[in-house]
């Protein structure tokens, strides 16, 4: 779960990281009030959970109340990369002597936390990594050993910094590492970490993504995860316990397993357009597939449904019953093709067929999708 910038900034501040004076506004009047308290000029930042917000016009400056009114009005209620701007963060505009980068993530390959720093923060950080690797330094932390300030100091020394900056920056690294540990974050990032003219540091942006699997054991007060999803279909998917991604095609997909779902999408994508990605995980029941049918049918203009499931951990015969019940109760007319293999496959095929589902019994998903294409043709 990725936190909003304003939520992450609060957590950063509670843990001793210097952050700008700021307030969160849902209306132009609130923004005006906050800016009045902070003093102009201020930054206005759209609170949307998507990268590249700045380049999409989501980060703006206001130097006067009139300017603020105009900018706040244009931001609030607008869309940034398809996401509605419900709140804007109003914060002091820092004087920038230098922009640094600080990120902490889990390196999947080594299975260890890694701290990444650069003396050239900002939106082009990944380009810097490619073109000027000497401006980047990274260190893996042995989880059994833990983090200690001297590790940060030696990391920063690689960049050839002055001791004053090393001292201040290693404090921030320690604080961010504690946050990453406590909030079980997959990514904790400050970009840019600003060096002020007086030599002090200021985290003018904050990224914090918490491990979904750890949410139940982390103590913090935030709105429920389901409420944070903007797309109503994706929110519904989360509520029933499946992964649903809304796409702009017209072929609905239900798959057990993310890999199989992706492959299905890839194959469908060759000639048709998927309406969604839906992955059930290992918890298939009749009820769950009934709800999955209900969910994918919410999508307007659906031309057909492709079901691709394996009976490994999942009782696919139970799942088939739920699909059939849905079809019968809602009188579904669009073609449905199912590939269902594994434990109890014959039983499953019979159930599907009893409800008018086209069953393909070969292993290759391509053949099932050929069948589907045969039934519906190109869009």
């Amino acid at each position, binding site marked *: 779960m990725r936190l909003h910038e304003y939520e992450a900034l609060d957590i950063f501040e509670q843990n001793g990281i210097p952050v700008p004076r700021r307030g969160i506004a849902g209306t132009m009047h609130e923004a005006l009030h906050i800016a009045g308290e902070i003093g102009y000029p201020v930054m206005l930042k759209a609170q949307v959970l998507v990268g590249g917000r700045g380049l999409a016009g989501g980060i703006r400056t206001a130097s006067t109340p009139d300017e603020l009114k105009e900018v706040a009005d244009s931001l609030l209620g607008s869309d940034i990369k398809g996401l509605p701007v419900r709140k804007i963060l109003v914060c002091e505009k820092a004087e920038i002597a230098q922009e640094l980068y600080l990120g902490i993530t*889990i390196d999947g390959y080594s299975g260890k936390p890694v701290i990444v720093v650069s003396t050239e923060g900002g939106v082009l950080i990944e380009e810097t990594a490619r073109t000027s690797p000497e401006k980047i330094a990274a260190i893996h932390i042995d989880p059994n050993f833990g983090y200690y300030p001297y590790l940060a100091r030696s990391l920063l020394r690689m960049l050839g910094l002055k001791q004053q900056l090393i001292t201040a920056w290693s404090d921030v690294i320690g604080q961010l590492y504690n946050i990453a540990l406590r909030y079980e974050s997959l990514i904790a990032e400050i970009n840019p970490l600003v060096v002020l003219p007086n030599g002090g540091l200021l985290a003018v942006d904050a990224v914090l993504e918490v491990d979904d699997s750890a949410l139940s054991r982390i103590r913090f007060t935030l709105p429920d995860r389901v409420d944070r999803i903007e797309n109503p279909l994706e929110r519904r998917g989360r509520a029933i316990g499946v992964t649903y991604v809304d796409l702009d095609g017209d072929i609905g997909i239900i798959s057990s397993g993310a890999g199989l779902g992706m492959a299905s999408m890839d194959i469908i994508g060759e000639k048709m357009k998927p309406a969604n990605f839906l992955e059930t995980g290992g918890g298939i029941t009749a009820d769950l597939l009934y709800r999955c049918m209900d969910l994918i049918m919410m999508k307007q203009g659906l031309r057909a449904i492709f079901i691709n499931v394996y009976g*490994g*951990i999942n009782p696919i015969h139970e799942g088939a019953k739920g699909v059939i019940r849905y079809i019968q109760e809602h009188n579904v007319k669009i073609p449905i093709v199912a590939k269902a293999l594994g434990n109890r496959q014959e039983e499953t095929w019979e159930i599907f067929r009893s409800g008018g589902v086209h069953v393909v019994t070969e292993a290759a998903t391509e053949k099932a999708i050929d069948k589907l294409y045969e039934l519906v043709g190109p869009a």
Partner: protein
Amino acid sequence: MSILINDSTRVIVQGITGRIGSAQTHWMLEYGTKVVGGVTPGKGGSSVEGVPVFDSVNEAVKETGANASVFFVPAAFVLDAFLETIDAGVKLIVIVPEHIPVKDVVKMRSYAIEKGVFALGPTTPGILAPGKGKMGIMPASMFAPGRVGIISRSGTLSYEFAGILSENHVGQSTVVGMGADPVVLRNLADILELFEEDEGTDAVIVVGEVGGEQEEKAAGFISRRMKKPVAAYIAGKHSPQGKRMGHAGAIVRGTSGTVQGKHEALRAAGAEVLESPIHVAQWAKKYNLK
């Protein structure tokens, strides 16, 4: 021959008394696997599918001579049970459950490697050696004995590839699910190494997916060390771009984990890239694989 499991593999099932644990014990036994015991703290003395249940792994290992374990333990308890299993001397562990916190997996991985334990998962369907046995949830009907190794990040796609091969009368030596989590207990290259060394395997199929750098790193291993033919399929070509959450990962990896990037790395390493799963049949034919 096969990798990881063979005739002397004696398996315990942790979380055997749960709904999934007991059902999968049934399937594993039916497939001929030597499931010799189960563990559920507090349920010691009972039995599931004729298999004795113990309160602790230590006891189970002592009483049954088990040397391998498969997990159907709720995610919150996996870390604890995993460490217990390693301390009990088990050398092969398959972690089927999903939604285990990454912080726990990091700890598990570091301890397993330190102790020389080969562990797979989390979120893995496990291992299946056709005709010999299986640890995990792979559905037996998809597999046939033969000489092709499959290693997959995705569970269901491992069934798919085995199924396509089996339909084309190409059998498998061993099918291994490495787990779908961002951190897994063993990396792709570790498993490729076992296949390269296995006399019962003539060629290997790698089933990867978008994201991370397992395939890029494996490409390095393939180019340096592998003599056997390797085919690779990477799922996710038409997947929408994941919402990017930070730069640190990409900076450290020096790769953005795209399907295209993985294709390039694998091709450069001499692997054959399969654009669609069904192409594996032609590839098998080309190398006259059985």
